């Protein structure tokens, strides 16, 4: 009887795994079929105004890139503080707050940036969108830096200090180097995460039909445009939304897999 229960349980567990995989497969297959179906290379050559996706793809990368320029240094230095310099309550409070921010609703962050940047400056801008993405990125980078640094053995730091190095040199020359691979993966995964975000951009940088490098106005975004296109009644818009979704997913998965590949080599 016990063996029977055991068998049933194991079967259920395997079944769940299959279900999970099935969902993944279903989504990917759908994307492939619908996306590839509407895909043609001219999407990379034309902007949205001409039925292509070029400006949106480039725009999304620019937004994510700018966000990373802000978010990565801030996140890493904060993570270094928490793990290396922080003692006691303040550091652990910041760690907790950062974890909370990591799960905060992205649309609320969008609303926040809307209130403090879009309203005072009189309009949507790429800067506002990038800042919203940066705010989302910072806690993730903090978390990964903190965790990777904590894996570096205590003796390595002591060996550096024992040679007469000051703390910041030990951190920069030795500890960060030792944690380098893990931190890089974490950053790549954070980048993959924000490049797929929509909500924070909805009312901060919105999107644009035109190619633009002007960050002080509405800025083209692949994700926001997918949302707009999907809501349009025309079949062609929705086909374009599928093609865009396909490209977005491929982008995100490639970045994600690259990150994992890096750590895989280390092991």
């Amino acid at each position: 009887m016990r063996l029977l229960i055991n068998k049933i349980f194991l079967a259920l567990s395997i079944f769940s795994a299959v279900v999970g995989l099935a969902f993944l497969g279903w989504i990917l297959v759908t994307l492939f079929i619908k996306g590839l179906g509407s895909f043609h290379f001219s999407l990379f050559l034309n902007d949205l105004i001409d039925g292509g996706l070029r400006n949106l793809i480039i725009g999304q990368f620019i937004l994510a890139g700018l966000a990373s320029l802000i978010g990565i240094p801030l996140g890493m230095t904060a993570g270094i503080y928490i793990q290396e310099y922080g003692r006691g309550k303040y550091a652990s409070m910041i760690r907790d707050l950062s974890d909370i921010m990591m799960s905060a609703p992205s649309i609320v962050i969008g609303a926040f940036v809307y209130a403090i940047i879009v309203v005072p400056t009189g309009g949507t801008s790429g800067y506002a969108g990038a800042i919203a993405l940066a705010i989302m990125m910072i806690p993730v980078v903090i978390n990964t830096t903190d965790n990777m640094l904590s894996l570096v053995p205590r003796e390595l730091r002591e060996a550096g200090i024992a040679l007469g190095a000051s703390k910041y040199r030990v951190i920069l020359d030795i500890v960060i180097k030792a944690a380098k691979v893990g931190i890089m993966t974490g950053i790549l995964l954070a980048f993959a995460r924000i490049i797929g975000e929509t909500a924070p951009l909805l009312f901060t940088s919105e999107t644009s039909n035109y190619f633009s490098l002007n960050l002080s106005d509405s800025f083209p975004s692949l994700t926001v445009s997918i949302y707009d296109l999907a809501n349009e009644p025309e079949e062609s818009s929705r086909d374009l939304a599928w093609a865009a979704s396909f490209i977005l997913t491929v982008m995100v998965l490639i970045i994600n897999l690259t990150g994992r590949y890096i750590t895989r080599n280390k092991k």
Partner: protein
Amino acid sequence: MEKIFQKLSLSSASLVFIILMGIFITLFSAAKPAIDEYGINFIFNPAWNKEVAIDLPTSTSLETPSNSTLTDDDAIDDEDDMIEDEDDMMIDDEDNSETKTIYGGLVPIVGTLLTTLIALVFALPIAMGIAVFLAEIAPKNISYFVGIAIELLAAIPSIIFGMWGLYYFAPIVADLVGGYQVSLLTAGLVLGVMILPFMAAITRDSMNTTPAVLKESAYALGATKFEVIKDIIFPYSKVGIIGSIILALGRALGETMAVAFLIGSIFVLPKAINDPTISIPVAMANNFGEASGLGESALFYLALILFIISFAVISLAKFYFLKKAK
């Protein structure tokens, strides 16, 4: 140089605190007009963007009506009695129909909570099953690859879930269960698929912290895998598992894009689970662009409520995890 570096890293760390405080303060001050106007009853009022006529006193009444509640922050229950401005009282023309717009947050709040609940109920057994599979049942190789697959599922942008959900998943659900394709149910289920990998991963990690010696001792006594999982592993990692559930809950509360495609986006309380309705993030996503004045403030009020709920839920998860660490 050492001091500079220390100060620099301290400032970055403090930024977290500043941003969080900033969000709270900004939301609160942007919501304040709506808070002043509607008070706590905002949470219970299902009327959104409704024009209501204001009943004006007849010309015979010269004294200040007793229900003038301009400076009162407390709830004004009966919207029909609201009086905008003392000056209006002077207008004793009974034909004058002053209207004002009422905003109440009940529908999106309920929508948010219910979609999250549905997502949790749907995802929990599957996520647990996957976690058990990854941690205890699958051989190392399979566990590795399936684990990666699950993590890839987590990496898929939420808007993709919205697209797939709307065009592929929802029609099937509607066929099976009846009712609308865009509804509380379909939104909740797709939300469930979204939080599935997250819950599975954290649960798996929690289960993996069970010391091998503990498991081995149970097996050595002749226990079956199911019994080891039930009696040893689950109790040991219980706290981490509950924490993961609450954390997933927190994530689901704030999800926008997947829900936006599937919930229907109407400010109506659902009578059945397969009725369309709306959630807070979706209300914000759809209306922010055109909103202004009290309407915009009402959206910020919703944002504030969502922020507070998420903050509370996630903090709760953290305390559970903290307990576990001890």
